[in-house]
């Protein structure tokens, strides 16, 4: 099963464009990421720039509306993610607990929906539909 670990750094919701983690934090995190890789559980990871460089597209009444970041109403935003392949939810939690995160950081763990989580009819329908490049 796969889990996504979402890193939620406090204050990132208001970070200036181009804000990057400091070098020391990068070095300790790199060691952690290497450990995940060596254990064979890491599928992917990435960090994202702060919301001030992003945008939100909201939908209402069939219309899309664009708001540039930062987003006043956002209390916490994510700053990066890992995708792990592990045996259990507990294992994902154990890996998250080993993250060299700082005091103002939270990791949220969410299970990735697997194909086999869908009802059989839905699976069959998805397998049938021919994969024309969309």
């Amino acid at each position: 099963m796969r889990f996504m670990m979402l890193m939620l750094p406090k204050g990132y919701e208001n970070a200036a464009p181009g804000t990057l983690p400091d070098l020391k934090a990068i070095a300790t995190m790199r060691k952690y990421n290497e450990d995940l890789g060596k254990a064979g559980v890491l599928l992917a990871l990435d960090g994202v720039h702060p919301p001030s460089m992003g945008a939100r597209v909201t939908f209402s009444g069939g219309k899309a509306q664009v708001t540039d970041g930062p987003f006043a109403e956002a209390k916490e935003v994510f700053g990066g993610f890992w995708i792990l392949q592990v045996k259990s939810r507990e294992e994902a939690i154990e890996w998250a607990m080993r993250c060299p995160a700082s005091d103002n950081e939270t990791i949220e763990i969410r299970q990735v929906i697997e194909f086999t989580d869908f009802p059989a009819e839905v699976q069959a329908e998805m397998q049938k539909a021919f994969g024309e490049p969309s």
Partner: protein
Amino acid sequence: MEENDSHRAIEAIWRIESARLIGAIARIVRDAGLAEELAQDALVAALEQWPDSGIPRNPAAWLMTAAKHRALDHLRRNKRIQTKHEELGRDLEARQRMAAADLDDALDDDIGDNLLRLIFTACHPVLTPEARVALTLRLLGGLTTAEIARAFLVAEPALAQRIVRAKRTLTERQVPFEVPRGEELANRLSSVFEVIYLIFNEGYTATAGEDWMRVALCEDALRLGRMLASLAPDEPEVHGLAALMEIQASRSRARVSHLGEPILLLAQNRALWDQLLIHRGLAALERSLALGGARGRYTLQAAIAACHARARVAEETDWARIAALYAELAAVAPSPVVELNRAVAVSMASGPLAGLNLVDALLLEPSLENYHLLPSVRGDLLAKLGRLEEARIEFERAAALTGNLRERAFLVNRAKLMKIP
């Protein structure tokens, strides 16, 4: 914390730590089987203590210390027994000092080296293939005996016996806890690849409706393969094997229907192929090719799988390249099954008749006598050539040979369709 919760948490810690723990202890006691028992003892202590005391801040260090104490006790006990024999009892003190120094070395030693030693030991050729598989999952995959038994559809006591016998064989044959060197390395590495790929295929051939433990074997094998790739990054075939498994696993959603029927590669909905795994597989293949040297069997199979992965639709498949790769594979690892696959690729690249000629050359091959895919492929080529009566006979023959009920139904149906409209 609820007791069940803490047990599950401890199991998760074990899954992460067990291989490193067993590797470090085996370095001290020079016996992988014994090391596993000592590490298990430490786990039992954790299971007894942690639910009350809470999980320590650094559970890995706790388990390592507990296992190390047990290893030292074991050495001391052994030394006491040894001192009774005069010839061995001379400089006990010096020996104990040495043991302590050894121990610190072992613990400071690169974790990776110990893991490599462990993997080579578990996959040692003195063991039967079944024993290697069971021991690898136990020592490196962190699986319990019950889990392995379930995954391989074997009774738990029988599997436990298999592991006990395997450990005893390692001790009796005095298999050193070492990474093989020189000429031996290539042979021993191929045994490791074989074991990991066996585990993968055991999961890959399990169908979706089956016990998830079986299907999870693919993930266990991938984890081992990725681990090995970071432990021995200079070996091209290590990356070739990882690439092959990643790309094959990328198709898992598309290749079996919810009723357990196989969906052939060319009929699969490629939109369901897992692009993350394909990306990882292609990257691993690149690494293997970049290391240069002669391309081995796993790298070549990965290259073939990559041809399929790169084709957005079945019609875009580069069959000429696949046929050439199969020819290269047949030279590296000759086998009638590879030749049969080459025939299919040739038929796709150059027409059914060219493929049929290659298939017909295999008809007298004794090892394919009862292989259902031979008549199945031959039937397919004959059908494409419009020789329906001959095709019908081949499909019926294939149906009679397969042990898989779903596949038999599929082939019986194909035979029925071989009528001139």
